């Protein structure tokens, strides 16, 4: 189980090294996670994810990372505007709503931007 969890977790990007090696990470998408409301903050804000991962996969990742109770929910918003569908893929959101090479996502435990 630990093995699969390792491979499934988003890979960290070092924000300092701008020229990332153009190999296996080149197709991945850079996301910026912002906490909003009374949700614990994830210190590492920039992550890279596989473009075909879904919104619900990101929600589950945050849930697990913050070790939330099973009855707590994570809501995710794009650019503080709308909540994408759980089965929407990151690639589509990045293509339409990415800015400066990043997709900016906000997460919280309560509905924020309805």
């Amino acid at each position, binding site marked *: 189980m630990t093995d699969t969890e390792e491979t499934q977790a988003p890979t960290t990007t070092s924000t300092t090294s701008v020229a990332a090696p153009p190999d296996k990470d080149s197709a991945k998408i850079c996301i910026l996670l912002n906490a909003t409301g009374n949700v614990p903050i994830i210190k590492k804000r920039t992550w890279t994810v596989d473009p075909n991962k879904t919104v619900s996969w990101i929600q589950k990742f945050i849930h697990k990372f913050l070790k939330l109770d099973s009855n707590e929910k994570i809501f995710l918003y*794009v650019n503080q*505007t*709308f909540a994408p*569908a759980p*089965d929407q893929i990151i690639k*589509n959101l990045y*293509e*339409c*709503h990415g800015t400066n090479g990043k997709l900016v996502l906000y997460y919280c435990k309560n509905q924020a931007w*309805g």
Partner: protein
Amino acid sequence: MAHDREVLRMIWEGQIGICFQADSEEIVGLRPEPFYLMVSRLSYLPLVTDKVRKYFTRYIAAEHQEGAVWFDFNGTPLRLHYPIGVLYDLLHPNEDGTPWCITIHFSKFPEETLVKLNTKELLESHYLACLKEADVLKHRGLVISAMQKKDHNQLWLGLINDKFDQFWAINRRLMEPYNDQESFKNIPVRFYYDDDFTYMQKLISPLNEAGQKKNLADLMAELSTPVRKAVGFRTHGICLPEETQLQWMSEHMSYPDNFLHLSVDYVSE
């Protein structure tokens, strides 16, 4: 856009005949007759199937009667948060005038493949999120955020109660051009291939670099790659002429969620 109001009306009135069948494993005793229903292409399965559910409940084993309802066509679970017309066109591309036979289930909800947006409340917030995303693309979100809660309610109630005038009284504001221009900033559109339910979204401008309105032929060129050529688009059961302008399509042929849902036909080069 006022000139083409008949088009809006025709799109609104599009219907599909559905023949609902029971899941034989859930039936106790006599097998019920199928349930036939004409439904709006623009609506969603959980919004139009109260009667269907009620009809089949009395034939279903007691322990399943309160279960989360879902549907399948030939073994493919149907996404509850996609407009019915989109599902039908993807799975039934050759319109033959016969009812669409789908199976209703009361148990074993396939959580892995279907998002559980199965109540009116959940669908309403999903619908509003789609509207917001579409307006972000069209007007940087300025029109929808200037609306009041009652306007959002009116759109939703217009859709679920099949009230064309009530819906369009508000929706027309979402169909105004961006700022002082003649078109939207971008066109909200989702592209589907074959019978795969995953769609592709990208930024599609209504204008080309010279500032002229793009048509579907331009869009074909934009979506084609050296190995795969886009050769046609379908929506609402219609094959679209390639001279159709994208801006006009967005204003007239979008679903109530304000997105164009286009099936793309490809050929390999």
